[in-house]
């Protein structure tokens, strides 16, 4: 398996109402071992997955949101968040976790993983991929 493909994991759903978000993250973590060119996209209610200070005590479900901050260690460094989806929900970048990765080529400089993109840009990002995983 020498060929490297561009993988985009598309996350469209809120984190706890259904299991799609959590089981999507499981694919991303397992898939990291395959050393493909991986990006994540968050749009529609999927932007809620990245919100900070999640507290699931009231619903008796596991809070898996801290796992997103480990993505950098799995060399998942491109996280595209759709600007319009945030705005439609009254959210901004400040409401999301600050996700970072360390750039080995620049003396482990800490860099932001989240890139805010417009709906039109998101369409271009999708068109540029070899494989889309939809969750």
């Amino acid at each position, binding site marked *: *398996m020498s060929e490297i493909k561009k993988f985009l994991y598309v996350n469209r759903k809120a984190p706890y109402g259904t299991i*799609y978000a959590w089981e999507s993250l499981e694919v991303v973590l*397992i898939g990291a*071992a*395959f050393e*493909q060119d991986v990006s994540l996209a968050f749009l529609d209610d999927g932007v809620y997955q990245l919100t900070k200070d999640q507290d699931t005590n009231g619903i008796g479900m596991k809070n898996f949101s801290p796992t997103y901050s480990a993505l950098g260690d799995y060399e998942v460094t491109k996280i595209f968040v759709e600007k319009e989806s945030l705005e439609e929900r009254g959210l901004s970048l400040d409401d999301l976790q600050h996700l970072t990765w360390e750039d080995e080529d620049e003396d482990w400089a800490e860099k932001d993983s989240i890139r805010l993109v417009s709906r039109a840009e998101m369409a271009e990002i999708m068109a540029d991929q070899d*494989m889309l*995983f939809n969750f």
Partner: protein
Amino acid sequence: MKLTIQINEGPYQHQSSDSAYYFTKAALGKGHEIFRVFFYHDGVNNGTRLTTPPQDDRNIVNRWSELAEQHGLDLVVCVAAAQRRGIVDDGEAKRNGKDATNIAPGFRISGLGQLVEGAIQSDRLVVFGD
């Protein structure tokens, strides 16, 4: 074309398993290669042989088993999703101390790496579900 099929929804509740079945059958009929069919999320419920639909309804599970036998399909049920939802084969029963199995003929339980490998090896990943 080489295809991997992903099914994210359970049978009967949702049309995606039916759609995936007809798509897979049509693709085979057109001479395409199905590298793998991967069942994820509630889609793992397509792989229980204990399903007993009314006699005048389609049997979704048996239909997959038969298609697998005819065409040598690789039907893979995600192990993590299967454990959550109680889809069990001999190996899983032994590992997790369960007193029964329910995996249907032609299905096997394996890891998420099988989905990622399918996406790497195939020309298209076709996903059925919400």
